[in-house]
Protein backbone atom coordinates (compact mmCIF):
# COMPACT_ATOMS: atom_id res chain seq x y z
CA UNK A 1 0.00 0.00 0.00
CA UNK A 2 1.42 3.36 -0.99
CA UNK A 3 2.05 5.87 1.78
CA UNK A 4 -0.51 8.64 2.06
CA UNK A 5 1.18 11.86 1.10
CA UNK A 6 1.46 14.71 3.59
CA UNK A 7 -0.61 16.79 1.22
CA UNK A 8 -3.46 14.25 1.35
CA UNK A 9 -3.37 14.26 5.14
CA UNK A 10 -3.36 18.06 5.17
CA UNK A 11 -6.34 18.22 2.82
CA UNK A 12 -8.13 15.57 4.88
CA UNK A 13 -7.80 17.55 8.10
CA UNK A 14 -8.88 20.71 6.27
CA UNK A 15 -11.99 18.94 4.95
CA UNK A 16 -10.81 19.39 1.38
CA UNK A 17 -10.68 15.81 0.10
CA UNK A 18 -13.23 14.53 -2.38
CA UNK A 19 -15.74 12.16 -0.79
CA UNK A 20 -14.01 9.17 -2.46
CA UNK A 21 -10.52 10.15 -1.26
CA UNK A 22 -11.92 10.86 2.13
CA UNK A 23 -13.47 7.45 2.58
CA UNK A 24 -10.36 5.78 1.20
CA UNK A 25 -8.25 7.57 3.76
CA UNK A 26 -10.66 6.83 6.56
CA UNK A 27 -10.68 3.11 5.71
CA UNK A 28 -6.92 3.06 6.05
CA UNK A 29 -6.94 5.15 9.16
CA UNK A 30 -8.42 2.34 11.22
CA UNK A 31 -5.38 0.10 10.80
CA UNK A 32 -2.51 2.32 9.70
CA UNK A 33 -0.69 3.61 12.78
CA UNK A 34 1.62 5.81 10.80
CA UNK A 35 -1.36 7.49 9.19
CA UNK A 36 -3.02 7.91 12.59
CA UNK A 37 0.06 9.74 13.81
CA UNK A 38 0.21 11.91 10.72
CA UNK A 39 -3.43 12.95 11.16
CA UNK A 40 -2.92 13.62 14.86
CA UNK A 41 0.12 15.80 14.13
CA UNK A 42 -1.75 17.68 11.46
CA UNK A 43 -4.60 18.34 13.92
CA UNK A 44 -2.10 19.47 16.52
CA UNK A 45 -0.80 22.08 14.11
CA UNK A 46 -4.37 23.36 13.53
CA UNK A 47 -4.95 23.56 17.27
CA UNK A 48 -1.77 25.61 17.64
CA UNK A 49 -3.20 28.08 15.15
CA UNK A 50 -6.34 28.38 17.24
CA UNK A 51 -4.38 28.73 20.48
CA UNK A 52 -2.12 31.37 18.98
CA UNK A 53 -4.56 33.59 17.18
CA UNK A 54 -8.08 33.03 18.51
CA UNK A 55 -7.47 34.86 21.81
CA UNK A 56 -7.32 38.04 19.70
CA UNK A 57 -11.07 37.68 19.15
CA UNK A 58 -11.81 38.21 22.83
CA UNK A 59 -9.54 41.21 23.23
CA UNK A 60 -10.83 44.68 23.66
CA UNK A 61 -10.68 46.51 20.33
CA UNK A 62 -8.50 49.64 20.58
CA UNK A 63 -10.36 52.93 20.56
CA UNK A 64 -8.44 54.21 17.57
CA UNK A 65 -10.00 51.47 15.43
CA UNK A 66 -13.49 51.90 16.87
CA UNK A 67 -13.34 55.63 16.30
CA UNK A 68 -12.78 55.16 12.59
CA UNK A 69 -16.16 53.48 12.34
CA UNK A 70 -18.16 55.45 14.86
CA UNK A 71 -19.07 58.77 13.43
CA UNK A 72 -21.23 61.20 15.32
CA UNK A 73 -24.66 60.71 13.86
CA UNK A 74 -27.85 61.05 15.87
CA UNK A 75 -29.57 58.39 13.78
CA UNK A 76 -27.10 55.66 14.54
CA UNK A 77 -25.72 54.38 17.77
CA UNK A 78 -22.23 53.07 18.25
CA UNK A 79 -24.01 50.10 19.67
CA UNK A 80 -21.07 47.77 19.82
CA UNK A 81 -18.94 50.03 21.85
CA UNK A 82 -20.26 49.31 25.30
CA UNK A 83 -20.16 45.57 24.83
CA UNK A 84 -16.68 45.32 26.10
CA UNK A 85 -15.99 47.86 28.73
CA UNK A 86 -13.15 50.07 27.57
CA UNK A 87 -10.26 50.67 29.89
CA UNK A 88 -11.05 53.51 32.21
CA UNK A 89 -14.73 52.85 31.76
CA UNK A 90 -16.96 55.37 33.45
CA UNK A 91 -20.63 55.90 34.03
CA UNK A 92 -20.55 59.04 31.97
CA UNK A 93 -20.07 56.88 28.89
CA UNK A 94 -23.25 55.00 29.56
CA UNK A 95 -25.15 58.13 30.33
CA UNK A 96 -23.97 59.85 27.18
CA UNK A 97 -24.81 56.78 25.21
CA UNK A 98 -28.23 56.46 26.74
CA UNK A 99 -28.85 60.10 25.90
CA UNK A 100 -27.83 59.64 22.29
CA UNK A 101 -30.03 56.61 22.02
CA UNK A 102 -32.95 58.48 23.45
CA UNK A 103 -32.37 61.14 20.83
CA UNK A 104 -32.03 58.57 18.09
CA UNK A 105 -35.23 56.82 19.10
CA UNK A 106 -36.99 60.14 19.29
CA UNK A 107 -35.77 61.29 15.88
CA UNK A 108 -36.23 58.00 14.16
CA UNK A 109 -39.29 56.50 15.64
CA UNK A 110 -41.05 58.86 17.90
CA UNK A 111 -40.96 58.88 21.61
CA UNK A 112 -40.50 55.69 23.54
CA UNK A 113 -41.81 56.36 26.97
CA UNK A 114 -40.87 54.44 30.05
CA UNK A 115 -44.53 53.86 30.75
CA UNK A 116 -44.96 52.12 27.48
CA UNK A 117 -41.89 50.00 28.14
CA UNK A 118 -43.22 48.95 31.50
CA UNK A 119 -46.60 48.16 30.03
CA UNK A 120 -45.26 45.92 27.32
CA UNK A 121 -42.67 44.08 29.33
CA UNK A 122 -45.07 41.32 30.27
CA UNK A 123 -45.64 40.63 26.60
CA UNK A 124 -42.05 39.56 25.97
CA UNK A 125 -40.78 36.17 26.95
CA UNK A 126 -37.26 34.85 26.72
CA UNK A 127 -37.40 32.43 23.85
CA UNK A 128 -35.19 29.39 23.50
CA UNK A 129 -33.13 31.30 20.95
CA UNK A 130 -32.61 34.25 23.27
CA UNK A 131 -31.74 31.97 26.19
CA UNK A 132 -29.21 30.14 24.05
CA UNK A 133 -27.62 33.43 23.00
CA UNK A 134 -27.49 34.56 26.63
CA UNK A 135 -25.83 31.27 27.52
CA UNK A 136 -23.16 31.08 24.85
CA UNK A 137 -22.83 34.23 22.78
CA UNK A 138 -19.94 36.59 23.51
CA UNK A 139 -20.22 40.28 22.75
CA UNK A 140 -16.68 40.23 21.46
CA UNK A 141 -17.16 37.52 18.89
CA UNK A 142 -20.82 37.57 17.91
CA UNK A 143 -21.78 38.12 14.32
CA UNK A 144 -23.30 41.47 13.41
CA UNK A 145 -26.12 39.48 11.83
CA UNK A 146 -26.92 37.35 14.84
CA UNK A 147 -30.64 37.67 15.61
CA UNK A 148 -29.90 38.22 19.29
CA UNK A 149 -27.22 40.80 20.02
CA UNK A 150 -25.59 40.64 23.43
CA UNK A 151 -24.67 43.94 25.04
CA UNK A 152 -23.13 44.51 28.45
CA UNK A 153 -22.51 41.69 30.92
CA UNK A 154 -22.14 42.49 34.60
CA UNK A 155 -22.60 41.18 38.11
CA UNK A 156 -25.86 42.13 39.81
CA UNK A 157 -26.54 42.97 43.48
CA UNK A 158 -26.80 39.35 44.61
CA UNK A 159 -23.69 38.24 42.77
CA UNK A 160 -25.73 36.93 39.84
CA UNK A 161 -24.51 37.56 36.30
CA UNK A 162 -26.74 39.82 34.20
CA UNK A 163 -26.63 40.61 30.49
CA UNK A 164 -28.34 43.13 28.26
CA UNK A 165 -29.51 42.03 24.85
CA UNK A 166 -31.23 43.26 21.73
CA UNK A 167 -33.72 41.43 19.56
CA UNK A 168 -35.94 42.58 16.73
CA UNK A 169 -38.67 43.50 19.21
CA UNK A 170 -36.54 45.70 21.42
CA UNK A 171 -33.96 45.68 24.18
CA UNK A 172 -33.86 43.72 27.39
CA UNK A 173 -31.99 42.85 30.52
CA UNK A 174 -31.84 39.35 31.98
CA UNK A 175 -30.18 38.05 35.12
CA UNK A 176 -29.23 34.54 36.06
CA UNK A 177 -31.61 32.90 38.46
CA UNK A 178 -30.79 29.29 39.29
CA UNK A 179 -30.18 27.65 35.94
CA UNK A 180 -32.23 30.10 33.94
CA UNK A 181 -32.19 33.63 32.64
CA UNK A 182 -34.87 35.72 34.26
CA UNK A 183 -36.10 38.79 32.43
CA UNK A 184 -35.62 41.89 34.56
CA UNK A 185 -36.78 44.40 32.02
CA UNK A 186 -37.82 44.60 28.43
CA UNK A 187 -38.12 47.83 26.49
CA UNK A 188 -39.85 47.25 23.15
CA UNK A 189 -38.67 49.03 20.02
CA UNK A 190 -41.23 51.03 18.16
CA UNK A 191 -42.16 48.95 15.19
CA UNK A 192 -41.58 48.90 11.49
CA UNK A 193 -38.96 51.58 10.98
CA UNK A 194 -37.04 50.36 13.97
CA UNK A 195 -34.41 48.26 12.26
CA UNK A 196 -31.67 50.78 12.81
CA UNK A 197 -32.35 50.76 16.48
CA UNK A 198 -33.58 47.34 17.26
CA UNK A 199 -30.07 46.29 18.09
CA UNK A 200 -29.24 49.29 20.15
CA UNK A 201 -29.96 46.94 22.98
CA UNK A 202 -27.72 48.05 25.75
CA UNK A 203 -28.40 51.68 25.06
CA UNK A 204 -32.13 51.78 25.53
CA UNK A 205 -32.71 54.34 28.24
CA UNK A 206 -34.93 52.14 30.32
CA UNK A 207 -32.52 49.22 30.09
CA UNK A 208 -29.56 51.42 30.86
CA UNK A 209 -31.10 52.90 33.96
CA UNK A 210 -31.96 49.41 35.14
CA UNK A 211 -28.32 48.42 34.58
CA UNK A 212 -27.22 51.38 36.66
CA UNK A 213 -29.56 50.30 39.39
CA UNK A 214 -28.39 46.70 39.49
CA UNK A 215 -24.71 46.73 38.64
CA UNK A 216 -22.17 45.93 41.31
CA UNK A 217 -18.75 47.15 40.22
CA UNK A 218 -17.95 47.49 36.54
CA UNK A 219 -19.14 45.66 33.45
CA UNK A 220 -17.25 42.53 32.50
CA UNK A 221 -14.52 42.89 29.96
CA UNK A 222 -14.05 40.39 27.14
CA UNK A 223 -12.01 37.98 29.17
CA UNK A 224 -14.31 38.06 32.19
CA UNK A 225 -17.28 37.55 29.93
CA UNK A 226 -15.66 34.50 28.38
CA UNK A 227 -14.66 33.09 31.75
CA UNK A 228 -18.16 33.54 33.13
CA UNK A 229 -19.64 31.85 30.08
CA UNK A 230 -17.20 28.96 30.18
CA UNK A 231 -18.01 28.45 33.85
CA UNK A 232 -21.74 28.36 33.09
CA UNK A 233 -22.63 31.79 34.52
CA UNK A 234 -22.17 31.02 38.21
CA UNK A 235 -23.18 33.52 40.85
CA UNK A 236 -20.22 35.08 42.63
CA UNK A 237 -19.57 36.03 46.21
CA UNK A 238 -21.92 33.51 47.79
Amino acid sequence: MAKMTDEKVMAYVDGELTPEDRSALERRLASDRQLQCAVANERLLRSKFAETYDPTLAEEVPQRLLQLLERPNPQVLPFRRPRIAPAGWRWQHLTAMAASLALALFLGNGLLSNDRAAEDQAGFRITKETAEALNVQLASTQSANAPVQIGVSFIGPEGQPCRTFGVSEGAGLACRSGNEWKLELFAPGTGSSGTEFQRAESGSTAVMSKVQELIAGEPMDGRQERQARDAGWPATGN
Partner: protein
Amino acid sequence: VEKFERELLGLLPRLRRFARSLTRNAAQADDLCQMALEKALMRRSQRREEARLDAWMFMIMRNCWIDERRKNTRELARFDAGVSADGLSDTAAPTNDPLGTLHLHQAMNALPDEQREAAALVWVEGFSYQEAADRLEIPIGTITSRLSRARGRLIKNLDGEND
Protein backbone atom coordinates in the same frame (compact mmCIF):
# COMPACT_ATOMS: atom_id res chain seq x y z
CA VAL B 1 -24.39 53.53 4.50
CA GLU B 2 -24.41 53.18 8.26
CA LYS B 3 -24.90 49.47 7.77
CA PHE B 4 -21.45 49.33 6.24
CA GLU B 5 -19.76 50.74 9.34
CA ARG B 6 -21.85 48.50 11.52
CA GLU B 7 -20.80 45.41 9.62
CA LEU B 8 -17.18 46.46 9.77
CA LEU B 9 -17.49 46.90 13.53
CA GLY B 10 -18.73 43.35 13.72
CA LEU B 11 -15.77 42.18 11.68
CA LEU B 12 -13.16 43.99 13.76
CA PRO B 13 -12.24 41.07 16.03
CA ARG B 14 -11.60 38.84 13.02
CA LEU B 15 -9.72 41.56 11.19
CA ARG B 16 -7.46 41.96 14.18
CA ARG B 17 -6.88 38.22 14.32
CA PHE B 18 -6.01 38.07 10.63
CA ALA B 19 -3.66 41.05 11.02
CA ARG B 20 -2.02 39.38 13.99
CA SER B 21 -1.22 36.34 11.90
CA LEU B 22 0.36 38.47 9.17
CA THR B 23 2.47 40.78 11.30
CA ARG B 24 5.08 40.48 13.97
CA ASN B 25 3.31 41.95 16.95
CA ALA B 26 0.10 43.44 18.26
CA ALA B 27 0.99 47.07 17.59
CA GLN B 28 1.95 46.34 14.03
CA ALA B 29 -1.25 44.34 13.58
CA ASP B 30 -3.44 47.22 14.74
CA ASP B 31 -1.55 49.61 12.46
CA LEU B 32 -2.39 47.29 9.61
CA CYS B 33 -6.05 47.18 10.70
CA GLN B 34 -6.20 50.93 10.75
CA MET B 35 -4.71 51.22 7.29
CA ALA B 36 -7.09 48.65 5.90
CA LEU B 37 -10.16 50.23 7.51
CA GLU B 38 -9.24 53.66 6.18
CA LYS B 39 -8.85 52.21 2.72
CA ALA B 40 -12.14 50.32 2.98
CA LEU B 41 -14.01 53.45 4.03
CA MET B 42 -12.62 55.28 1.02
CA ARG B 43 -13.44 52.46 -1.35
CA ARG B 44 -16.83 51.50 -0.08
CA SER B 45 -18.47 52.54 -3.36
CA GLN B 46 -16.31 50.09 -5.28
CA ARG B 47 -17.62 47.14 -3.35
CA ARG B 48 -20.14 44.97 -5.12
CA GLU B 49 -23.11 44.43 -2.86
CA GLU B 50 -23.12 40.70 -3.37
CA ALA B 51 -19.44 40.30 -2.47
CA ARG B 52 -18.85 38.89 0.98
CA LEU B 53 -17.74 41.74 3.18
CA ASP B 54 -15.25 39.65 5.12
CA ALA B 55 -13.49 38.34 2.02
CA TRP B 56 -13.43 41.82 0.50
CA MET B 57 -12.07 43.32 3.68
CA PHE B 58 -9.45 40.61 4.19
CA MET B 59 -8.15 41.25 0.69
CA ILE B 60 -7.90 44.98 1.30
CA MET B 61 -5.90 44.17 4.39
CA ARG B 62 -3.75 41.65 2.58
CA ASN B 63 -2.99 44.21 -0.16
CA CYS B 64 -2.08 46.84 2.42
CA TRP B 65 0.22 44.31 4.02
CA ILE B 66 1.91 43.46 0.70
CA ASP B 67 2.28 47.18 -0.14
CA GLU B 68 3.88 47.82 3.20
CA ARG B 69 6.19 44.86 2.84
CA ARG B 70 7.35 46.15 -0.51
CA LYS B 71 7.68 49.84 -0.03
CA ASN B 72 8.67 50.28 3.51
CA THR B 73 11.67 48.14 4.16
CA ARG B 74 13.07 50.64 6.60
CA GLU B 75 9.96 50.53 8.71
CA LEU B 76 10.05 46.79 8.58
CA ALA B 77 13.61 46.82 9.77
CA ARG B 78 12.43 48.92 12.68
CA PHE B 79 9.63 46.46 13.39
CA ASP B 80 12.06 43.60 13.09
CA ALA B 81 14.40 45.19 15.57
CA GLY B 82 11.69 45.09 18.20
CA VAL B 83 10.56 41.56 17.51
CA SER B 84 11.32 39.28 20.43
CA ALA B 85 8.28 38.15 22.35
CA ASP B 86 6.91 41.46 23.51
CA GLY B 87 4.22 41.74 20.89
CA LEU B 88 2.67 38.51 21.95
CA SER B 89 3.31 38.31 25.62
CA ASP B 90 0.95 41.12 26.49
CA THR B 91 -1.80 40.09 24.12
CA ALA B 92 -1.93 36.34 23.93
CA ALA B 93 -4.47 34.87 26.30
CA PRO B 94 -3.13 32.40 28.79
CA THR B 95 -2.96 28.93 27.35
CA ASN B 96 -1.67 25.64 28.57
CA ASP B 97 1.13 25.87 26.10
CA PRO B 98 2.27 29.46 25.86
CA LEU B 99 5.60 28.45 24.43
CA GLY B 100 4.01 26.40 21.71
CA THR B 101 1.82 29.28 20.55
CA LEU B 102 4.70 31.69 20.59
CA HIS B 103 6.73 29.27 18.56
CA LEU B 104 4.00 28.93 16.01
CA HIS B 105 3.90 32.69 15.60
CA GLN B 106 7.66 32.78 15.20
CA ALA B 107 7.44 30.02 12.65
CA MET B 108 4.77 32.03 10.80
CA ASN B 109 7.12 35.02 10.82
CA ALA B 110 9.72 32.91 9.08
CA LEU B 111 7.44 31.88 6.19
CA PRO B 112 7.69 33.48 2.77
CA ASP B 113 4.86 35.98 2.22
CA GLU B 114 2.90 33.86 -0.23
CA GLN B 115 2.89 30.88 2.11
CA ARG B 116 2.07 32.99 5.11
CA GLU B 117 -0.95 34.63 3.51
CA ALA B 118 -2.27 31.25 2.40
CA ALA B 119 -1.82 29.86 5.91
CA ALA B 120 -3.48 32.92 7.44
CA LEU B 121 -6.52 32.74 5.16
CA VAL B 122 -7.08 29.01 5.51
CA TRP B 123 -5.80 28.04 8.95
CA VAL B 124 -6.47 31.22 10.86
CA GLU B 125 -9.58 32.54 9.12
CA GLY B 126 -11.06 29.27 7.95
CA PHE B 127 -11.49 30.01 4.26
CA SER B 128 -11.70 26.95 2.01
CA TYR B 129 -8.88 26.32 -0.45
CA GLN B 130 -11.17 27.41 -3.27
CA GLU B 131 -12.22 30.63 -1.53
CA ALA B 132 -8.60 31.49 -0.75
CA ALA B 133 -7.59 30.75 -4.35
CA ASP B 134 -10.43 32.92 -5.67
CA ARG B 135 -9.51 35.82 -3.44
CA LEU B 136 -5.81 35.64 -4.28
CA GLU B 137 -6.65 35.02 -7.94
CA ILE B 138 -4.48 31.96 -8.24
CA PRO B 139 -5.33 28.35 -9.15
CA ILE B 140 -6.46 26.08 -6.35
CA GLY B 141 -3.48 23.82 -7.01
CA THR B 142 -1.17 26.72 -6.24
CA ILE B 143 -2.90 27.31 -2.91
CA THR B 144 -2.63 23.64 -2.07
CA SER B 145 1.07 23.52 -2.81
CA ARG B 146 1.74 26.76 -0.89
CA LEU B 147 -0.13 25.39 2.09
CA SER B 148 1.71 22.13 1.79
CA ARG B 149 5.07 23.89 1.79
CA ALA B 150 3.97 26.16 4.61
CA ARG B 151 2.96 23.23 6.82
CA GLY B 152 6.25 21.47 6.08
CA ARG B 153 8.22 24.52 7.21
CA LEU B 154 6.04 25.18 10.22
CA ILE B 155 6.34 21.61 11.44
CA LYS B 156 10.09 21.62 10.84
CA ASN B 157 10.52 24.87 12.78
CA LEU B 158 8.26 23.77 15.60
CA ASP B 159 10.07 20.46 15.90
CA GLY B 160 13.42 22.21 15.87
CA GLU B 161 12.41 24.37 18.78
CA ASN B 162 11.02 21.55 20.81
CA ASP B 163 14.29 19.67 20.72
